[in-house]
């Protein structure tokens, strides 16, 4: 079963049930340094990724550092 989420501004269907599932599905290594996640406008700490469930309509941001001024 899949559900519709907004991932980094794009509407997507996913079978992922938790934040950790979603990152795996998107090929983001869970141990990767510098990755941070926000779910519906609040940061989800790395330690909570596998225990945080996703629901239809959720908006998720996955970010990392880039060059900047």
């Amino acid at each position: 079963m899949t559900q519709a989420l907004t991932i980094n501004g794009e509407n997507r269907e996913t079978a992922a049930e938790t934040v950790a599932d979603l990152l795996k599905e998107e090929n983001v290594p869970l141990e990767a340094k510098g990755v941070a996640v926000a779910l519906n406008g609040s940061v989800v700490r790395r330690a909570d990724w596998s225990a945080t469930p996703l629901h239809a309509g959720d908006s998720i941001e996955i970010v990392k550092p880039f060059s900047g001024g």
Partner: protein
Amino acid sequence: MLMKVENPNGDPMEIAGVPFNSRLMLGTAGYPNRQVMLDAIEAGGAEIVTVSIRRISLESYAESMTDVLKGKHLLPNTSGCATARDAVLTAQLAREALETNWVKLEVIGDRETLYPDVEELLKAAEELVKDGFIVLPYANDDPVTCRKLADVGCAAVMPMGSFIGSGLGVANPAAMARIVAEATVPIICDAGLGTASDAAVAMELGCDGVLLNTAVAKALDPVRMARAMGLAVQSGREARLAGRIPKLERAEPSSPQLGLIGG
């Protein structure tokens, strides 16, 4: 290979109780390639470097800036944010991503000038300070705004020299001098500097440090320009501490006026 700028030991810039020997802070964007960026940071002697926080590309996961800039004091920015809400969330994501509570707070009110939205900036600064952040806001070169930012608990305030990326230098030296004179926290001149003399001017006006990016990254030889900036910052700092002579609108001879031949 150019010599790198050696930072003095006896005159640290302290922000939130942390001493830095270098008063030059560098951005990491827009260099011809990653190696030139790293060489420029090295040549300029910068200890604090800024990074941005962006959505990852869902197609590929590339090497992280955290590995590339190992050993540097990373200062994540909230560039591109237009509201206090977005800036606060970006800062919180940066804290999680980089394990630092330091943030260069940018809240932009106008895309053409990249001027801060002062109302949203103050709101975000206050909120982030309460949330335990060390906040360094990019601000207008306006003594009132800078004072208000210090009053809400920002660890340093970073007024613009001039428009971001413009290379126009310190556009309003008198305002910058007033900001410095009234400052209760370190003042970092951020944005608009074009060449070494601009950095020296900012330091001579009493700024505690400068933060720049484009002037180095887009120079013909970024590594050499970074070194020039590092030297200029030291030079300007020395001149500030030495105390310059007042400006006169007439000549004042430097040789003795007594014992002139034919006198």
